[in-house]
């Protein structure tokens, strides 16, 4: 066992020695030395070279796997028996050297992800009650512990700033190297870097639960989650290797051509076929991860590349979702009380409009909010709750009319006026009386217009905006970003219907959204793309996560998926082409064992180098 492991560990050195021995043997021949020495050198080279390959073959056989190593081992022993020492030596050398190069180049394609996981912090400076500091491994930090993070250090946990202020580089999470100011109460993430200043952070999530650890895990899983094509190749390879072995035996028995039989063994190594597609996917997903686009696997890449319809949610996707209250109109003298109650209800919600209202109330100096009971979210309509025994409804006009409330002419006019201005309207009713109308404005993301144009240019045929908002607000936004088709006043379930309709017409649909009520649409669409700033649920149900929550990333994902899919096809062509070429060569008698192995190794390197081009992929 120890010997086996030792042989494995010096595999690369063995390759080097075998190479030198072969060179020496041919050098000797060239100098005109006696042939017996050359044969001796090649004999030693063969024996040395086959050792690690044999060990690998043996270990695989023990768990009932017929591996390529076994094919090569049999071939080399065969060549050895018929006295073709030069062939056997060269084949082992090429095989070992090839796997060394494979290892080196594969390392490169995995670099993006490795650099990501290596960024993970290891220890945390835990601040004790008595003011002393203990260094603790990140996995062992208790939730609620106070962690000290100094300038130049990494934040080791997800949590909230409890003391100090600092500028933090969040590139590890968002892919964007921009300094973000953090103050008391702000959320900070594990893996981000404090650029200057000192923070004390209360740990909320530690170890594998942190956002950063989850990103790493997601990307790691994604790289190895296979597309159906890859799964097919895998299954194929499982049967392929034993089949080649069988074929060689049959041909050997039929033709009595021992040399032909062992040549088939070498040529039959699946090589580039097995590695071709996965290596493209790894490079593509790695590139995405580095640029804030998390793609969850090979299948997603292929599906994304075939998307022809992109459906956007409006709020938080095309618009900033960073809404602000633009005006309020009260229909009651108890203005502050009503506003406080509204804010209390909305404080329970993470809807963008709710956040805007909470923030507005805060700005008005309302911090002591009344207690809310019996809170109930009516998806797409609003919220209903009870405060001090009175029913409060906060939501769209439809929520009010559904509850049997009547809007006065003046109130209806205010709602219409807001709509025309492209603003969202939130109505508040206490019991059966409408007491407040709030106008909330949202702004379009600055990159939206160019992003939409780029998607059109890259072959997306249909772009659609769906929103729960009213017609006028939708029209204003759609017009601004350059989308011609939009559907307003939709409930979450109706958004799903639209996607189903498109799919029924044979279209491949990507849906882009963020909020909690988008999850069904995200799950149903061929590709669900979630904005990273959205809720956890949305990120889980989606296929692609955009860490920076920008529309430029949608464009990036689209172009990258297409480039990766193209690259995969190129690699499959290279791999299959090599096999065809070798077969032709074999039939025509041009290909020997050693030259066959050489072509194989070249094809493996060719697919890896081709995939590496994806690592440098950028949108021109």
């Amino acid at each position: 066992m120890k010997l086996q492991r030792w042989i494995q560990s010096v595999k690369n050195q063995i390759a080097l020695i075998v190479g030198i021995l072969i060179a020496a043997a041919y050098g000797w021949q060239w100098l005109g030395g006696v042939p017996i020495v050359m044969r001796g050198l090649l004999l030693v080279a063969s024996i040395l070279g086959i050792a690690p390959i044999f060990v690998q073959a043996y270990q695989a056989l023990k768990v009932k796997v017929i591996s390529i190593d076994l094919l090569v081992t049999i071939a080399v022993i065969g060549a050895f028996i018929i006295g073709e020492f030069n062939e056997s030596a060269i084949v082992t050398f090429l095989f070992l050297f090839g796997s060394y190069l494979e290892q080196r180049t594969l390392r490169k394609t995995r670099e993006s992800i490795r650099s990501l996981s290596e960024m993970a912090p290891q220890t945390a400076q835990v601040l004790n009650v008595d003011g002393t500091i203990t260094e603790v491994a990140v996995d062992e930090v208790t939730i609620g512990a106070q962690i000290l993070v100094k300038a130049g250090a990494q934040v080791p946990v997800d949590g909230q700033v409890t003391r100090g202020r600092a500028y933090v580089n969040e590139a590890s999470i968002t892919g964007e190297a921009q300094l973000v100011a953090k103050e008391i109460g702000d959320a900070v993430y594990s893996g981000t870097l404090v650029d200057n200043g000192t923070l004390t952070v209360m740990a909320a999530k530690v170890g594998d639960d942190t956002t950063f650890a989850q990103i790493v895990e997601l990307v790691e899983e994604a790289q190895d989650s296979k597309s159906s094509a890859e799964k097919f190749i895998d299954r194929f390879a499982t049967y392929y290797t034993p089949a080649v072995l069988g074929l060689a035996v049959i041909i050997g028995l039929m033709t009595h051509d021992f040399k032909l039989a062992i040549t088939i063994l070498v040529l039959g190594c699946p090589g580039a076929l097995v590695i071709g597609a996965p290596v493209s996917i790894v490079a593509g997903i790695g590139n995405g991860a580095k640029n804030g686009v998390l793609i969850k696997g090979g299948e997603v890449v292929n599906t994304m590349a075939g998307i022809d319809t992109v459906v956007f949610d409006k709020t938080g996707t095309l618009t900033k979702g960073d809404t602000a209250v633009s005006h309020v109109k009260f229909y009651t003298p108890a203005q502050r009380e009503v506003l406080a109650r509204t804010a209390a209800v909305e404080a329970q919600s993470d809807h963008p409009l709710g956040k805007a209202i909470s923030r507005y109330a805060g700005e008005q100096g309302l911090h002591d909010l009344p207690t809310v009971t019996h809170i109930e979210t009516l998806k797409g309509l609003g919220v209903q709750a009870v405060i001090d025994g009175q029913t409060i409804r906060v939501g769209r006009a439809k929520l009010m009319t559904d509850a049997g409330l009547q809007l006065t002419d003046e109130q209806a006019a205010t709602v219409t006026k807001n709509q025309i201005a492209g603003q969202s309207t939130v109505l508040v009713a206490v019991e059966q009386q409408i007491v407040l109308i709030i106008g909330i404005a949202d702004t379009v993301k600055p990159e939206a217009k160019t992003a939409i144009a780029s998607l059109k240019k890259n072959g997306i045929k249909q772009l659609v905006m769906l929103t729960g908002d009213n017609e006028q607000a939708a029209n204003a936004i759609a017009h601004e970003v350059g989308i011609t088709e939009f559907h307003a006043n939709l409930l979450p379930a109706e958004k799903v219907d639209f996607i189903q309709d498109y799919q029924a017409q044979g279209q491949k649909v990507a849906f882009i959204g963020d909020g909690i009520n988008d999850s069904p649409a995200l799950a149903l669409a061929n590709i669900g793309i979630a904005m990273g700033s959205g809720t956890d649920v949305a990120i889980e149900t989606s296929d692609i996560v955009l860490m920076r929550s920008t529309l430029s990333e949608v464009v990036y994902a689209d172009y990258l998926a297409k480039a990766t899919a193209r690259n995969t096809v190129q690699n499959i062509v290279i791999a299959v082409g090599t096999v065809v070429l070798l077969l032709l060569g074999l039939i025509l008698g041009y290909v020997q064992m050693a030259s066959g192995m050489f072509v194989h190794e070249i094809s493996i390197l060719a697919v890896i180098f081709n995939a590496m081009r994806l690592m440098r992929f950028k949108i021109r």
Partner: protein
Amino acid sequence: MAKLVMQLDELSCPSCMQKIQAGVSQQTGVESVKVLFNASKVKAEYDALVTDPEQLTQVVTDLGYNVQSFKVK
């Protein structure tokens, strides 16, 4: 059902994956095995009453792959 995650030295041949997959899943008490080729990780779900992490890492080591570290979740 316990979950074991092993970090291996860099894996570079797809056939290694097959070997590890087969080797670990043939152990009694192992429910599912996933070899992450690119991350060079092995994730296994196993019955803690039947087998233990030491035994499973030993299988991988015996196959000729060095286990750098492992974590039980």
